[in-house]
């Protein structure tokens, strides 16, 4: 049981759905591609379009306050308990009685149409908002049929990793409403809960210097993942995470922990989130004003080489080497593996509960960011500050847009407020009851409220809260606080640009990535990866780089 939807719980859902896209950092920064579209943003234009940030004074005080890192980086606040008497954040009824339709993706079972939760929420919102959740797994094919017929609903969520499928860059302005006049600069102050969303998150809704999208589940701690370890097992052997300060330390630790006869191997797959230890760029790097792809760097080859050695060292679980990803968490819970890379979405209450079920001492920990040589400053590349973006229909009248933005303001009420409690848990006594102070779903609540719908239209910035698993919140927030200073924006961070289909295929570089995977599973040598890269560079890779240089770097810079 989690307390409402936050960014991390969303990521854990999305990771299973987005699958390859979530696992391949290569694709994540490339906005996507299609035919006609709005361009990226200029520095001044972006600045003018973005709303002014104003923290929410009425928000519940967190137990762990956010720790600031570099620009736009901060940890999410942590809460150990749920407020007994939730304060009110929005006064009055936001709506004026308008009727609207909304479409959001849904990964799970759809709540019944016109259920008591929808009714209760519509009543307090003062609008007739008819929710039409659509199957999340096929969402990328459902939306294009609506756009082709120009029949978008009044309000829709368009996850940014599908921007190329949706042709979002071509829809803004023609089918999606320009919100710049309503939200840019100080205009946003009319909607204080929206003004409290981090600026970096709004950036994902800006196309061609105009603001179109409202970010959901925004965060200033866009860290995609980490290298996890079994804290209970390691500490029982007197090993603490801070003893690992280099890649060699990690390898030696692995050798010490592996006991194949007992069926224990230290490592599961770690490549995806460990490669930054070698300072491998997240897709691109700028050297002397020129674009360099990660495949072209020496750091990349060094990282691959270490992982090849790891795969052949006998410290990696054979099933992991056999590419069995699906059972990775089972291996981790049962202590068959002790060190595993993974998305941060995994570090939450349900993970804690699954782990405890397998081993009652279970405790997840994450290694601090390290540099491979143990001397340089570690780097953690920031992911998007929001990837679930909602848009309004361009055919809405200004008064209607204002009405829906007021509704969005209500939906973005911060953690622990009365509004948040209603949106996340429904009506007390009907959809949830308090069990030891923790809002807990009733059967009706599980049916009507648990599936995320309204928060996909607008939601407050994410928080860390695991009621019933305070240890998880403490562990997570202290790890985040220790690592936030290493957060670094990769080039083109938060930039919306779209590339043609053929180049999106080039960016996916299937042959290089296949060979790479074979290499970090010990089946191919580093030289094979080099060969694959060489042939990629001479063909699609070269075209990709040229396009990025001509259409993004030279026109708009790196967005930093």
């Amino acid at each position, binding site marked *: 049981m989690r307390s409402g939807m936050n960014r991390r719980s969303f990521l854990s859902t999305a990771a299973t759905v987005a699958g390859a896209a979530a696992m391949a950092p290569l694709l994540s920064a490339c906005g996507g591609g299609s035919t006609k579209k709005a361009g990226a943003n200029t520095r001044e234009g972006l600045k003018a379009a973005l709303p002014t940030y104003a923290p929410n004074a009425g928000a519940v005080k967190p137990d762990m306050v956010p720790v600031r890192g570099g620009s736009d980086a901060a940890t999410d606040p942590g809460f150990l308990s749920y407020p007994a008497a939730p304060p009110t954040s929005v006064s009055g009824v936001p709506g004026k009685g308008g009727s609207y339709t909304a479409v959001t993706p849904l990964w799970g079972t759809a709540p019944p149409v016109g259920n008591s939760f929808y009714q209760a929420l519509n009543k307090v919102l003062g609008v007739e908002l008819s929710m039409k959740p659509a199957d999340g797994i096929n969402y990328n094919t459902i939306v294009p049929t609506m756009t082709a017929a120009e029949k978008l609903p009044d309000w829709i969520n368009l996850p940014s990793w599908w921007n190329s499928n949706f042709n979002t860059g071509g829809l803004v302005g023609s089918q999606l409403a320009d919100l710049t006049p309503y939200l840019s600069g100080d205009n946003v102050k009319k909607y204080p809960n929206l003004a409290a969303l981090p600026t970096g998150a709004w950036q994902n809704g800006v196309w061609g210097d105009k603001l179109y999208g409202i970010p959901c589940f925004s965060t200033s701690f866009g860290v995609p993942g980490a290298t996890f370890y079994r804290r209970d097992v390691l500490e029982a052997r007197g090993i603490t995470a801070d003893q690992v300060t280099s890649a060699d330390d990690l390898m030696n630790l692995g050798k010490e922990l592996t006991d194949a006869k007992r069926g224990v191997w230290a490592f599961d797959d770690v490549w995806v989130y460990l490669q930054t230890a070698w300072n491998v760029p997240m897709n691109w790097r700028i050297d002397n004003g020129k674009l360099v792809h990660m495949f072209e760097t020496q750091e990349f080859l060094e990282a691959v080489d270490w992982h090849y050695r790891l795969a052949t060292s006998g410290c990696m679980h*054979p099933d992991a080497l056999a590419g069995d990803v699906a059972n990775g968490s089972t291996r981790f819970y049962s202590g068959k593996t002790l060190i595993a890379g993974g998305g941060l979405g995994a570090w939450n209450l349900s993970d804690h509960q699954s782990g405890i079920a397998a081993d009652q001492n279970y405790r997840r920990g994450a290694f601090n960011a390290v540099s491979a040589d143990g001397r340089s400053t570690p780097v953690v590349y920031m992911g998007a500050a929001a990837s679930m973006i909602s848009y309004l229909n361009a055919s809405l009248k200004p008064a209607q847009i204002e009405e829906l933005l007021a509704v969005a303001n209500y939906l973005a009420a911060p953690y622990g407020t009365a509004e948040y409690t209603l949106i996340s848990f429904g009506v007390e006594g009907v959809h949830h009851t308090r069990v030891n102070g923790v809002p807990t779903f009733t059967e009706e609540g599980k049916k009507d409220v648990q599936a995320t719908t309204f928060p996909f239209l607008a939601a407050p910035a994410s928080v860390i809260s695991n009621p019933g698993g305070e240890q998880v919140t403490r562990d997570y927030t202290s790890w985040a606080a220790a690592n936030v200073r290493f957060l670094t924006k990769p080039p083109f961070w938060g930039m919306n640009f779209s590339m043609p289909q053929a180049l999106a295929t080039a960016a996916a570089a299937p042959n290089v990535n296949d060979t790479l995977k074979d290499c970090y599973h010990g089946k191919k040598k580093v030289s094979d990866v080099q060969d694959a890269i060489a042939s990629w560079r001479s063909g699609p890779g070269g075209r990709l780089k040229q396009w990025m240089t001509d259409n993004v770097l030279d026109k708009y810079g790196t967005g930093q």
Partner: protein
Amino acid sequence: MSTAAPERPAGHTRLNWRIRLRRDKSLLLMTVPAVVLLLVFNYVPLFGIVTAFQEYDPLVGVWHSEWVGFDQFQQLFGDPAFWAALKNTLYLSFVQLVLFFPVPIALALLLNSVLSERIRNFFQSVVYLPHFFSWVLAVTIFQQMLGGAGVLNQFLRQHDIGTWDIMTNPHTFALLVTSQAVWKEAGWGIIVFLAALSAINSELYEAAAADGAGRVRRMWHITLPGLRGVIVLMLVLRLGNALSVGFEQFLIQRDAVGHEAADVLDTFSFYYGISTGGYSYGAAAGLFKSVVSLLLIWGANRLAHAFGEDGLYRK
């Protein structure tokens, strides 16, 4: 088709089609749903072939995608990964033909010789069962038993015998997938041969036994000739499908042995076409496969006719 089919009546004048229509009305009606399904799911989607000659963009649809002629094929034939996938497909198909094809025949003969009804039913149930497992389950069972951390290797490891790399060795992958296929599908494959066996006139056996023919002679002179038509038919179908060696089985184990050993034409279309958004490229690879398959099945059928067998249809 089957050996039990009656001989075609010689010199029989054909009835007027109208009379035949009236006579077979209910039979024809019964075939309508199957024909409709075939049309909707097999013939209508054929239209999608045009995407192989386009730079297909799902956003603008088939009608408005750019026409590129044979560009996709040109790129395809210049792609070493494609030739590697084709080579793998042919090699796996050959290995399966040699090692898999005879197994159901042998099993059917064996089963046919078992007289006890109970043992026969039990045996049949056991060998049919794996057919109903999904490939995910089948591969998981193999991984649990023979994988690097599986039952066998853990036993070997604990007794310091040294491990045996079965599941992740690209060099023996063809044998692995064939043995998986035998385990999963051979039992199911015997059904058609059992049907053919039951159609052999038992009086022939009695007459042969009365003439003093032993088991081996009876098998050689009665059983095998009786099965020949079905065996040739299955062989023709198998050859026609030579380029379809399976999809899920390879998809699931691709990471275990690496893409070079596991990529067959179908997974190639998937990985290098669909999953990277290069739909037209995948369609081109698929079309190539279909054309070659058509030629193969045509050739195999001709060969069957040349040997005086029915093949797919009677000449």
